[in-house]
Protein backbone atom coordinates (compact mmCIF):
# COMPACT_ATOMS: atom_id res chain seq x y z
CA UNK A 1 0.00 0.00 0.00
CA UNK A 2 1.42 3.38 -0.96
CA UNK A 3 1.67 6.05 1.70
CA UNK A 4 -0.96 8.01 -0.18
CA UNK A 5 -3.56 5.26 -0.20
CA UNK A 6 -2.65 4.59 3.42
CA UNK A 7 -3.52 8.17 4.30
CA UNK A 8 -6.77 7.97 2.33
CA UNK A 9 -7.52 4.78 4.22
CA UNK A 10 -6.88 6.55 7.53
CA UNK A 11 -9.19 9.42 6.58
CA UNK A 12 -11.85 6.95 5.56
CA UNK A 13 -11.52 5.06 8.84
CA UNK A 14 -11.85 8.21 10.90
CA UNK A 15 -14.60 9.91 8.98
CA UNK A 16 -16.77 7.26 7.38
CA UNK A 17 -19.13 6.70 10.32
CA UNK A 18 -19.97 10.35 10.69
CA UNK A 19 -20.26 10.90 6.93
CA UNK A 20 -22.45 7.83 6.40
CA UNK A 21 -24.74 8.78 9.28
CA UNK A 22 -25.35 12.18 7.74
CA UNK A 23 -25.78 10.74 4.23
CA UNK A 24 -28.35 8.21 5.50
CA UNK A 25 -30.37 10.96 7.16
CA UNK A 26 -30.10 12.98 3.97
CA UNK A 27 -31.23 10.16 1.65
CA UNK A 28 -33.16 7.79 3.91
CA UNK A 29 -31.24 4.90 2.37
CA UNK A 30 -28.28 2.93 3.70
CA UNK A 31 -27.44 1.62 0.25
CA UNK A 32 -27.50 4.96 -1.55
CA UNK A 33 -25.43 6.50 1.23
CA UNK A 34 -22.80 3.75 1.09
CA UNK A 35 -22.55 3.92 -2.70
CA UNK A 36 -22.19 7.69 -2.62
CA UNK A 37 -19.44 7.51 -0.02
CA UNK A 38 -17.61 4.84 -1.98
CA UNK A 39 -17.84 6.97 -5.13
CA UNK A 40 -16.50 9.95 -3.21
CA UNK A 41 -13.57 7.89 -1.97
CA UNK A 42 -12.80 6.79 -5.51
CA UNK A 43 -12.84 10.41 -6.67
CA UNK A 44 -10.51 11.29 -3.80
CA UNK A 45 -8.15 8.46 -4.75
CA UNK A 46 -8.04 9.85 -8.33
CA UNK A 47 -7.75 13.57 -7.61
CA UNK A 48 -5.90 13.94 -4.32
CA UNK A 49 -2.53 12.71 -5.63
CA UNK A 50 -2.38 15.74 -7.97
CA UNK A 51 -4.46 18.29 -6.04
CA UNK A 52 -3.14 17.35 -2.61
CA UNK A 53 -5.09 16.15 0.43
CA UNK A 54 -7.61 18.87 1.39
CA UNK A 55 -7.30 20.61 4.74
CA UNK A 56 -10.49 19.02 6.03
CA UNK A 57 -10.67 15.70 4.18
CA UNK A 58 -13.81 14.60 6.03
CA UNK A 59 -15.75 17.67 4.91
CA UNK A 60 -14.40 17.25 1.37
CA UNK A 61 -15.59 13.64 1.27
CA UNK A 62 -18.98 14.62 2.72
CA UNK A 63 -19.50 17.29 0.08
CA UNK A 64 -18.41 14.99 -2.74
CA UNK A 65 -20.56 12.13 -1.43
CA UNK A 66 -23.60 14.39 -1.17
CA UNK A 67 -23.08 15.39 -4.78
CA UNK A 68 -22.98 11.72 -5.82
CA UNK A 69 -26.02 11.05 -3.67
CA UNK A 70 -28.06 13.72 -5.41
CA UNK A 71 -27.00 12.32 -8.80
CA UNK A 72 -27.99 8.83 -7.70
CA UNK A 73 -31.35 9.98 -6.37
CA UNK A 74 -32.02 11.83 -9.62
CA UNK A 75 -31.40 8.64 -11.54
CA UNK A 76 -33.41 6.50 -9.18
CA UNK A 77 -37.04 6.67 -10.15
CA UNK A 78 -38.09 4.95 -6.94
CA UNK A 79 -36.79 7.96 -5.05
CA UNK A 80 -38.33 10.56 -7.34
CA UNK A 81 -40.17 12.35 -4.55
CA UNK A 82 -37.23 12.42 -2.20
CA UNK A 83 -35.01 13.63 -5.05
CA UNK A 84 -37.35 16.50 -5.85
CA UNK A 85 -37.28 17.48 -2.20
CA UNK A 86 -33.51 17.38 -2.13
CA UNK A 87 -33.14 19.25 -5.38
CA UNK A 88 -35.39 21.98 -4.07
CA UNK A 89 -32.93 22.66 -1.29
CA UNK A 90 -29.73 22.07 -3.23
CA UNK A 91 -28.29 24.21 -5.99
CA UNK A 92 -28.47 22.40 -9.34
CA UNK A 93 -25.05 23.67 -10.32
CA UNK A 94 -22.97 21.90 -7.78
CA UNK A 95 -20.37 23.97 -6.05
CA UNK A 96 -17.99 22.34 -3.65
CA UNK A 97 -18.69 24.01 -0.31
CA UNK A 98 -15.69 25.38 1.50
CA UNK A 99 -14.57 22.30 3.39
CA UNK A 100 -13.22 24.48 6.19
CA UNK A 101 -16.65 25.85 7.05
CA UNK A 102 -18.97 22.99 6.12
CA UNK A 103 -21.00 21.87 9.10
CA UNK A 104 -20.93 18.18 9.88
CA UNK A 105 -24.04 17.36 11.90
CA UNK A 106 -23.51 14.39 14.17
CA UNK A 107 -26.14 11.82 13.28
CA UNK A 108 -24.23 8.90 14.67
CA UNK A 109 -26.39 8.33 17.73
CA UNK A 110 -29.44 8.14 15.48
CA UNK A 111 -27.56 5.69 13.30
CA UNK A 112 -26.48 3.49 16.19
CA UNK A 113 -30.05 3.17 17.53
CA UNK A 114 -31.21 2.14 14.07
CA UNK A 115 -28.36 -0.34 13.67
CA UNK A 116 -29.06 -1.77 17.15
CA UNK A 117 -32.85 -1.97 16.69
CA UNK A 118 -34.27 -5.10 18.39
CA UNK A 119 -36.19 -5.94 15.22
CA UNK A 120 -32.79 -6.83 13.73
CA UNK A 121 -31.14 -10.00 14.94
CA UNK A 122 -28.06 -9.50 17.16
CA UNK A 123 -25.58 -10.63 14.49
CA UNK A 124 -27.06 -8.14 12.06
CA UNK A 125 -26.88 -5.36 14.67
CA UNK A 126 -23.17 -5.92 15.25
CA UNK A 127 -22.33 -6.28 11.58
CA UNK A 128 -24.27 -3.19 10.58
CA UNK A 129 -22.80 -1.02 13.32
CA UNK A 130 -19.24 -2.08 12.59
CA UNK A 131 -19.79 -1.58 8.88
CA UNK A 132 -21.47 1.83 9.05
CA UNK A 133 -20.21 3.43 12.27
CA UNK A 134 -16.93 1.60 12.63
CA UNK A 135 -16.08 1.89 8.95
CA UNK A 136 -14.77 -1.68 8.92
CA UNK A 137 -14.74 -3.58 5.66
CA UNK A 138 -16.95 -6.63 5.24
CA UNK A 139 -13.75 -8.68 5.15
CA UNK A 140 -12.58 -7.36 8.54
CA UNK A 141 -15.99 -7.95 10.13
CA UNK A 142 -16.22 -11.44 8.65
CA UNK A 143 -12.82 -12.31 10.12
CA UNK A 144 -13.79 -10.90 13.52
CA UNK A 145 -16.87 -13.13 13.53
CA UNK A 146 -15.01 -16.10 12.01
CA UNK A 147 -17.52 -16.46 9.19
CA UNK A 148 -17.11 -16.36 5.40
CA UNK A 149 -17.21 -12.88 3.89
CA UNK A 150 -20.12 -13.86 1.62
CA UNK A 151 -22.19 -14.82 4.68
CA UNK A 152 -21.45 -11.49 6.32
CA UNK A 153 -22.25 -9.56 3.15
CA UNK A 154 -25.57 -11.38 2.88
CA UNK A 155 -26.30 -10.59 6.53
CA UNK A 156 -25.74 -6.89 5.84
CA UNK A 157 -27.97 -6.95 2.77
CA UNK A 158 -30.76 -8.64 4.73
CA UNK A 159 -30.45 -6.15 7.58
CA UNK A 160 -30.61 -3.15 5.27
CA UNK A 161 -33.55 -4.66 3.41
CA UNK A 162 -35.40 -5.15 6.68
CA UNK A 163 -34.69 -1.58 7.79
CA UNK A 164 -36.18 -0.33 4.54
CA UNK A 165 -39.13 -2.70 4.17
CA UNK A 166 -40.19 -2.93 7.81
CA UNK A 167 -39.87 0.82 8.31
CA UNK A 168 -37.30 0.74 11.12
CA UNK A 169 -37.01 4.44 11.96
CA UNK A 170 -33.82 6.46 11.67
CA UNK A 171 -34.14 8.23 14.99
CA UNK A 172 -33.29 8.11 18.66
CA UNK A 173 -36.08 6.14 20.41
CA UNK A 174 -38.70 7.72 22.63
CA UNK A 175 -38.14 8.11 26.37
CA UNK A 176 -40.24 5.09 27.34
CA UNK A 177 -38.32 2.58 25.22
CA UNK A 178 -34.84 4.10 25.39
CA UNK A 179 -33.76 2.12 28.50
CA UNK A 180 -34.14 -1.30 26.92
CA UNK A 181 -32.93 -0.07 23.55
CA UNK A 182 -29.74 1.30 25.06
CA UNK A 183 -28.75 -2.15 26.41
CA UNK A 184 -28.30 -3.34 22.84
CA UNK A 185 -26.43 -0.15 22.01
CA UNK A 186 -24.02 -0.69 24.93
CA UNK A 187 -23.24 -4.20 23.70
CA UNK A 188 -22.41 -2.88 20.26
CA UNK A 189 -20.35 0.08 21.52
CA UNK A 190 -18.29 -2.29 23.67
CA UNK A 191 -17.74 -4.53 20.68
CA UNK A 192 -16.46 -1.56 18.69
CA UNK A 193 -14.10 -0.76 21.56
CA UNK A 194 -12.82 -4.32 21.64
CA UNK A 195 -12.36 -4.32 17.90
CA UNK A 196 -10.15 -1.28 18.40
CA UNK A 197 -8.42 -2.64 21.50
CA UNK A 198 -7.40 -5.99 20.09
CA UNK A 199 -8.12 -5.83 16.39
CA UNK A 200 -8.08 -9.37 15.11
CA UNK A 201 -5.92 -8.76 12.07
CA UNK A 202 -4.64 -5.25 12.53
CA UNK A 203 -0.88 -4.92 12.27
CA UNK A 204 -0.76 -3.19 15.64
CA UNK A 205 -2.62 -4.42 18.70
CA UNK A 206 -4.55 -1.24 19.34
CA UNK A 207 -6.57 0.76 16.87
CA UNK A 208 -6.88 3.87 18.92
CA UNK A 209 -9.41 5.50 16.59
CA UNK A 210 -12.00 2.78 17.21
CA UNK A 211 -11.38 2.94 20.96
CA UNK A 212 -11.81 6.71 20.91
CA UNK A 213 -14.91 6.27 18.78
CA UNK A 214 -16.47 3.82 21.25
CA UNK A 215 -15.62 6.09 24.19
CA UNK A 216 -17.11 9.06 22.37
CA UNK A 217 -20.34 7.19 21.69
CA UNK A 218 -20.51 6.06 25.32
CA UNK A 219 -20.12 9.69 26.47
CA UNK A 220 -23.03 10.72 24.27
CA UNK A 221 -25.08 7.86 25.69
CA UNK A 222 -24.21 9.02 29.25
CA UNK A 223 -25.30 12.56 28.41
CA UNK A 224 -28.56 11.35 26.90
CA UNK A 225 -29.34 8.83 29.62
CA UNK A 226 -27.67 9.97 32.84
CA UNK A 227 -30.19 7.98 34.92
CA UNK A 228 -28.89 4.66 33.63
CA UNK A 229 -25.77 3.80 35.68
CA UNK A 230 -24.77 1.08 33.24
CA UNK A 231 -23.92 3.74 30.66
CA UNK A 232 -21.42 5.19 33.14
CA UNK A 233 -20.25 1.65 33.91
CA UNK A 234 -19.54 1.06 30.24
CA UNK A 235 -17.74 4.39 29.86
CA UNK A 236 -15.68 3.75 33.02
CA UNK A 237 -14.77 0.25 31.83
CA UNK A 238 -13.54 1.48 28.46
CA UNK A 239 -11.64 4.41 30.00
CA UNK A 240 -9.86 2.06 32.40
CA UNK A 241 -8.91 -0.36 29.65
CA UNK A 242 -7.86 2.51 27.41
CA UNK A 243 -5.77 4.04 30.23
CA UNK A 244 -3.38 1.09 29.90
CA UNK A 245 -2.94 1.51 26.16
CA UNK A 246 0.58 3.00 26.26
CA UNK A 247 1.75 0.28 28.64
CA UNK A 248 0.22 -2.58 26.70
CA UNK A 249 2.90 -2.72 24.04
CA UNK A 250 6.62 -2.00 24.30
CA UNK A 251 8.68 0.17 21.93
CA UNK A 252 8.96 -2.70 19.46
CA UNK A 253 5.21 -3.25 19.42
CA UNK A 254 5.39 -6.36 21.61
CA UNK A 255 2.50 -7.24 23.90
CA UNK A 256 3.11 -6.54 27.60
CA UNK A 257 0.76 -8.39 29.94
CA UNK A 258 -0.92 -6.70 32.90
CA UNK A 259 1.52 -8.07 35.51
CA UNK A 260 4.53 -6.82 33.54
CA UNK A 261 3.15 -3.41 32.57
CA UNK A 262 4.90 -0.23 33.68
CA UNK A 263 2.05 1.31 35.68
CA UNK A 264 3.65 4.74 35.42
CA UNK A 265 2.61 4.63 31.77
CA UNK A 266 -1.06 4.26 32.64
CA UNK A 267 -3.03 7.39 31.82
CA UNK A 268 -3.97 8.93 35.19
CA UNK A 269 -6.59 11.31 33.76
CA UNK A 270 -8.59 8.43 32.30
CA UNK A 271 -8.30 6.43 35.54
CA UNK A 272 -9.46 9.37 37.66
CA UNK A 273 -12.40 10.02 35.36
CA UNK A 274 -13.40 6.35 35.47
CA UNK A 275 -13.12 6.09 39.27
CA UNK A 276 -15.28 9.22 39.62
CA UNK A 277 -17.89 7.69 37.29
CA UNK A 278 -17.95 4.50 39.36
CA UNK A 279 -18.36 6.43 42.63
CA UNK A 280 -21.48 8.04 41.21
CA UNK A 281 -23.08 4.70 40.42
CA UNK A 282 -22.13 2.81 43.57
CA UNK A 283 -25.33 0.95 44.44
CA UNK A 284 -26.27 -0.19 40.97
CA UNK A 285 -24.83 -3.42 39.77
CA UNK A 286 -24.80 -4.41 36.14
CA UNK A 287 -22.52 -6.18 33.78
CA UNK A 288 -20.47 -3.16 32.72
CA UNK A 289 -20.34 -1.61 36.19
CA UNK A 290 -18.95 -4.88 37.59
CA UNK A 291 -16.36 -5.22 34.85
CA UNK A 292 -15.37 -1.60 35.44
CA UNK A 293 -14.96 -2.29 39.17
CA UNK A 294 -12.66 -5.20 38.36
CA UNK A 295 -10.59 -2.95 36.12
CA UNK A 296 -10.64 -0.30 38.86
CA UNK A 297 -9.12 -2.77 41.35
CA UNK A 298 -6.16 -3.10 38.99
CA UNK A 299 -6.00 0.66 38.45
CA UNK A 300 -5.87 1.34 42.22
CA UNK A 301 -3.16 -1.24 42.84
CA UNK A 302 0.55 -0.40 42.64
CA UNK A 303 1.43 -3.83 41.28
CA UNK A 304 0.20 -7.39 40.70
CA UNK A 305 1.50 -8.44 44.14
CA UNK A 306 -0.54 -5.76 45.89
CA UNK A 307 -3.75 -6.33 43.95
CA UNK A 308 -6.78 -7.49 45.93
CA UNK A 309 -7.26 -10.68 43.92
CA UNK A 310 -9.82 -12.09 46.38
CA UNK A 311 -12.02 -9.02 45.76
CA UNK A 312 -11.53 -9.47 42.01
CA UNK A 313 -12.53 -13.15 42.24
CA UNK A 314 -15.65 -12.10 44.18
CA UNK A 315 -16.52 -9.46 41.56
CA UNK A 316 -16.14 -12.10 38.83
CA UNK A 317 -18.52 -14.37 40.77
CA UNK A 318 -21.05 -11.51 40.82
CA UNK A 319 -20.45 -10.98 37.12
CA UNK A 320 -21.32 -14.63 36.49
CA UNK A 321 -24.83 -13.81 37.75
CA UNK A 322 -25.26 -11.37 34.85
CA UNK A 323 -23.36 -13.15 32.12
CA UNK A 324 -22.01 -16.61 32.88
CA UNK A 325 -19.84 -17.04 29.83
CA UNK A 326 -16.77 -19.28 29.56
CA UNK A 327 -14.56 -16.19 29.20
CA UNK A 328 -15.88 -14.66 32.46
CA UNK A 329 -15.32 -18.00 34.19
CA UNK A 330 -11.79 -18.13 32.78
CA UNK A 331 -11.04 -14.71 34.25
CA UNK A 332 -12.49 -15.78 37.60
CA UNK A 333 -10.22 -18.82 37.52
CA UNK A 334 -7.18 -16.57 37.00
CA UNK A 335 -8.23 -14.42 39.98
CA UNK A 336 -8.71 -17.57 42.07
CA UNK A 337 -5.22 -18.71 41.04
CA UNK A 338 -3.77 -15.39 42.21
CA UNK A 339 -5.63 -15.34 45.52
CA UNK A 340 -5.88 -19.02 46.48
CA UNK A 341 -2.98 -20.60 44.61
CA UNK A 342 -2.12 -21.76 41.10
CA UNK A 343 -3.28 -25.35 41.69
CA UNK A 344 -6.70 -24.14 42.79
CA UNK A 345 -6.89 -21.80 39.78
CA UNK A 346 -5.96 -24.63 37.44
CA UNK A 347 -8.64 -26.87 38.95
CA UNK A 348 -11.29 -24.16 38.44
CA UNK A 349 -10.05 -23.53 34.90
CA UNK A 350 -10.22 -27.18 33.89
CA UNK A 351 -13.92 -27.33 34.77
CA UNK A 352 -14.91 -24.60 32.28
CA UNK A 353 -16.49 -26.03 29.14
CA UNK A 354 -16.46 -24.53 25.66
CA UNK A 355 -13.01 -22.92 25.51
CA UNK A 356 -11.15 -25.58 23.52
CA UNK A 357 -10.70 -23.32 20.47
CA UNK A 358 -10.07 -20.08 22.41
CA UNK A 359 -6.38 -19.17 22.34
CA UNK A 360 -6.45 -17.17 25.60
CA UNK A 361 -7.73 -20.24 27.49
CA UNK A 362 -4.67 -22.24 26.45
CA UNK A 363 -2.38 -19.29 27.10
CA UNK A 364 -3.82 -18.65 30.59
CA UNK A 365 -3.65 -22.34 31.44
CA UNK A 366 -0.06 -22.56 30.19
CA UNK A 367 0.77 -19.54 32.33
CA UNK A 368 -0.39 -21.30 35.49
CA UNK A 369 1.48 -24.49 34.50
CA UNK A 370 4.64 -22.43 33.92
CA UNK A 371 4.33 -20.86 37.37
CA UNK A 372 3.85 -24.33 38.83
CA UNK A 373 7.11 -25.40 37.15
CA UNK A 374 5.40 -27.88 34.81
CA UNK A 375 7.34 -26.74 31.75
CA UNK A 376 6.39 -29.52 29.34
CA UNK A 377 2.66 -29.07 29.93
CA UNK A 378 3.09 -25.27 29.73
CA UNK A 379 4.92 -25.64 26.41
CA UNK A 380 2.08 -27.75 25.02
CA UNK A 381 -0.45 -25.12 26.14
CA UNK A 382 1.42 -22.17 24.61
CA UNK A 383 1.86 -24.17 21.40
CA UNK A 384 -1.86 -24.85 21.18
CA UNK A 385 -2.58 -21.15 21.80
CA UNK A 386 -0.10 -20.30 19.05
CA UNK A 387 -2.02 -22.48 16.59
CA UNK A 388 -5.26 -20.63 17.39
CA UNK A 389 -4.09 -17.02 17.74
CA UNK A 390 -4.71 -14.58 14.87
CA UNK A 391 -3.37 -11.26 16.20
CA UNK A 392 0.31 -10.95 15.22
CA UNK A 393 1.23 -9.10 18.43
CA UNK A 394 -0.31 -11.82 20.57
CA UNK A 395 1.38 -14.42 18.38
CA UNK A 396 4.78 -12.80 19.00
CA UNK A 397 4.06 -12.78 22.76
CA UNK A 398 3.33 -16.51 22.73
CA UNK A 399 6.48 -17.17 20.72
CA UNK A 400 8.54 -15.30 23.32
CA UNK A 401 6.93 -17.35 26.09
CA UNK A 402 7.81 -20.55 24.29
CA UNK A 403 11.38 -19.37 23.69
CA UNK A 404 11.73 -18.46 27.40
CA UNK A 405 10.48 -21.91 28.38
CA UNK A 406 12.90 -23.59 25.98
CA UNK A 407 15.90 -21.78 27.45
CA UNK A 408 14.62 -22.32 30.98
CA UNK A 409 14.20 -26.00 30.19
CA UNK A 410 17.95 -26.31 29.55
CA UNK A 411 18.76 -25.03 33.02
CA UNK A 412 19.36 -28.05 35.26
CA UNK A 413 16.75 -28.45 38.00
CA UNK A 414 17.68 -27.26 41.46
CA UNK A 415 19.06 -29.99 43.69
Amino acid sequence: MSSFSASLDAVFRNESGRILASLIRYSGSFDLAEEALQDACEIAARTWPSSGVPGNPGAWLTAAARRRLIDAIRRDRLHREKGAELLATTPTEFEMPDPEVIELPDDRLRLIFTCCHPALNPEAQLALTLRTLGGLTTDEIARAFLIPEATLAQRLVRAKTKIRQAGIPYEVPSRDSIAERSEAVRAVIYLIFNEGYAATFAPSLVRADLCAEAIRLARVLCELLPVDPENRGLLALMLLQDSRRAARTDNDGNLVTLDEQDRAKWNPAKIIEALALLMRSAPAYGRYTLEARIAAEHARSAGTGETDWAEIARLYSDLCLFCKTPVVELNRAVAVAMSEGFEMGLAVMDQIPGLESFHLFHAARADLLRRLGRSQAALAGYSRALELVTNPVERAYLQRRIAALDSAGRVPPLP
Partner: protein
Amino acid sequence: MSPNRRTSESGQPAPNIDNLKEPAMQYLLAIYTQESAAAQATPEDMKAMMGAYYAFTMEIKEKGVYLGGNALQPTTTATTVRVREGNTITTDGPFAETREQLGGYYLVNCENLDEAIAYAAKIPGAAFGSIEIRPVWAM
Protein backbone atom coordinates in the same frame (compact mmCIF):
# COMPACT_ATOMS: atom_id res chain seq x y z
CA MET B 1 -63.07 -23.80 -5.99
CA SER B 2 -64.55 -21.27 -3.67
CA PRO B 3 -62.11 -19.89 -1.20
CA ASN B 4 -63.58 -18.58 1.99
CA ARG B 5 -62.94 -14.84 1.97
CA ARG B 6 -65.47 -13.89 4.58
CA THR B 7 -62.95 -12.72 7.06
CA SER B 8 -60.60 -10.80 4.83
CA GLU B 9 -62.71 -8.18 3.15
CA SER B 10 -66.27 -8.10 4.40
CA GLY B 11 -67.30 -6.62 7.69
CA GLN B 12 -64.45 -4.14 8.04
CA PRO B 13 -65.64 -0.92 9.67
CA ALA B 14 -64.85 2.06 7.46
CA PRO B 15 -61.68 3.88 8.53
CA ASN B 16 -62.09 7.29 10.05
CA ILE B 17 -61.14 9.31 6.99
CA ASP B 18 -61.15 12.65 8.81
CA ASN B 19 -58.52 11.55 11.27
CA LEU B 20 -56.40 9.58 8.81
CA LYS B 21 -52.80 10.77 8.88
CA GLU B 22 -50.52 11.23 5.93
CA PRO B 23 -49.97 7.81 4.37
CA ALA B 24 -46.80 6.44 5.90
CA MET B 25 -46.59 2.67 6.20
CA GLN B 26 -49.23 0.04 6.62
CA TYR B 27 -48.68 -2.82 9.03
CA LEU B 28 -50.69 -5.94 9.72
CA LEU B 29 -50.76 -6.67 13.43
CA ALA B 30 -51.59 -10.38 13.57
CA ILE B 31 -52.82 -11.49 16.99
CA TYR B 32 -51.76 -14.98 18.04
CA THR B 33 -53.21 -16.43 21.25
CA GLN B 34 -53.97 -19.86 22.67
CA GLU B 35 -57.49 -20.82 21.68
CA SER B 36 -57.62 -23.46 24.39
CA ALA B 37 -57.18 -20.75 27.04
CA ALA B 38 -59.91 -18.60 25.49
CA ALA B 39 -62.27 -21.60 25.47
CA GLN B 40 -61.84 -21.93 29.23
CA ALA B 41 -62.44 -18.24 29.96
CA THR B 42 -65.42 -17.29 32.15
CA PRO B 43 -68.17 -15.03 30.72
CA GLU B 44 -66.83 -12.23 32.96
CA ASP B 45 -63.33 -12.69 31.51
CA MET B 46 -64.74 -12.64 27.99
CA LYS B 47 -66.67 -9.46 28.71
CA ALA B 48 -63.61 -7.75 30.14
CA MET B 49 -61.56 -8.82 27.10
CA MET B 50 -64.19 -7.53 24.67
CA GLY B 51 -64.20 -4.23 26.57
CA ALA B 52 -60.41 -3.97 26.37
CA TYR B 53 -60.43 -4.64 22.61
CA TYR B 54 -63.25 -2.12 22.13
CA ALA B 55 -61.26 0.54 24.02
CA PHE B 56 -58.10 -0.19 22.00
CA THR B 57 -60.01 -0.06 18.71
CA MET B 58 -61.59 3.27 19.67
CA GLU B 59 -58.20 4.68 20.62
CA ILE B 60 -56.54 3.84 17.31
CA LYS B 61 -59.57 5.04 15.35
CA GLU B 62 -59.42 8.39 17.12
CA LYS B 63 -55.70 8.68 16.38
CA GLY B 64 -56.25 7.92 12.70
CA VAL B 65 -54.12 4.81 12.90
CA TYR B 66 -56.88 2.26 12.29
CA LEU B 67 -57.39 0.96 8.75
CA GLY B 68 -59.22 -2.26 9.56
CA GLY B 69 -59.44 -5.18 11.90
CA ASN B 70 -61.42 -8.26 12.79
CA ALA B 71 -61.63 -11.08 15.24
CA LEU B 72 -61.60 -14.53 13.65
CA GLN B 73 -63.60 -17.64 14.45
CA PRO B 74 -61.39 -20.35 16.03
CA THR B 75 -59.20 -22.62 13.92
CA THR B 76 -61.79 -25.42 14.37
CA THR B 77 -63.70 -23.53 11.66
CA ALA B 78 -60.64 -23.22 9.39
CA THR B 79 -60.38 -24.82 5.96
CA THR B 80 -57.15 -24.99 4.01
CA VAL B 81 -57.10 -25.14 0.23
CA ARG B 82 -54.23 -26.07 -2.07
CA VAL B 83 -54.22 -26.44 -5.84
CA ARG B 84 -51.74 -29.05 -7.06
CA GLU B 85 -51.48 -30.08 -10.71
CA GLY B 86 -54.89 -28.58 -11.34
CA ASN B 87 -56.58 -30.42 -8.48
CA THR B 88 -58.10 -28.50 -5.62
CA ILE B 89 -57.25 -30.17 -2.35
CA THR B 90 -59.42 -29.01 0.53
CA THR B 91 -58.56 -30.03 4.08
CA ASP B 92 -60.02 -29.35 7.48
CA GLY B 93 -58.02 -27.17 9.86
CA PRO B 94 -55.45 -24.38 9.76
CA PHE B 95 -52.44 -24.13 7.46
CA ALA B 96 -50.07 -25.03 10.27
CA GLU B 97 -50.47 -26.42 13.78
CA THR B 98 -48.89 -23.91 16.15
CA ARG B 99 -48.84 -23.37 19.89
CA GLU B 100 -50.67 -20.06 19.44
CA GLN B 101 -53.28 -19.51 16.75
CA LEU B 102 -54.18 -16.51 14.62
CA GLY B 103 -57.26 -15.10 16.35
CA GLY B 104 -57.62 -11.66 14.81
CA TYR B 105 -55.80 -8.75 13.26
CA TYR B 106 -55.58 -5.03 12.88
CA LEU B 107 -54.45 -3.18 9.79
CA VAL B 108 -52.82 0.06 10.89
CA ASN B 109 -51.28 3.15 9.41
CA CYS B 110 -48.05 4.05 11.20
CA GLU B 111 -45.12 6.39 10.77
CA ASN B 112 -42.58 3.61 11.26
CA LEU B 113 -41.92 0.28 12.94
CA ASP B 114 -41.44 1.84 16.39
CA GLU B 115 -44.94 3.30 16.27
CA ALA B 116 -46.33 -0.04 15.11
CA ILE B 117 -44.50 -1.79 17.97
CA ALA B 118 -45.96 0.70 20.47
CA TYR B 119 -49.52 0.01 19.25
CA ALA B 120 -48.95 -3.74 19.03
CA ALA B 121 -47.87 -3.70 22.69
CA LYS B 122 -51.23 -2.10 23.59
CA ILE B 123 -53.31 -4.86 21.99
CA PRO B 124 -54.92 -6.77 24.90
CA GLY B 125 -53.74 -10.11 23.47
CA ALA B 126 -50.08 -8.99 23.67
CA ALA B 127 -50.23 -9.46 27.44
CA PHE B 128 -50.65 -13.25 27.10
CA GLY B 129 -50.19 -14.05 23.39
CA SER B 130 -47.97 -12.69 20.60
CA ILE B 131 -48.44 -10.00 18.00
CA GLU B 132 -46.67 -10.48 14.69
CA ILE B 133 -46.02 -7.19 12.91
CA ARG B 134 -45.83 -7.43 9.14
CA PRO B 135 -45.31 -4.45 6.88
CA VAL B 136 -47.76 -4.43 3.98
CA TRP B 137 -46.06 -4.67 0.61
CA ALA B 138 -46.31 -1.17 -0.83
CA MET B 139 -47.56 -1.42 -4.43
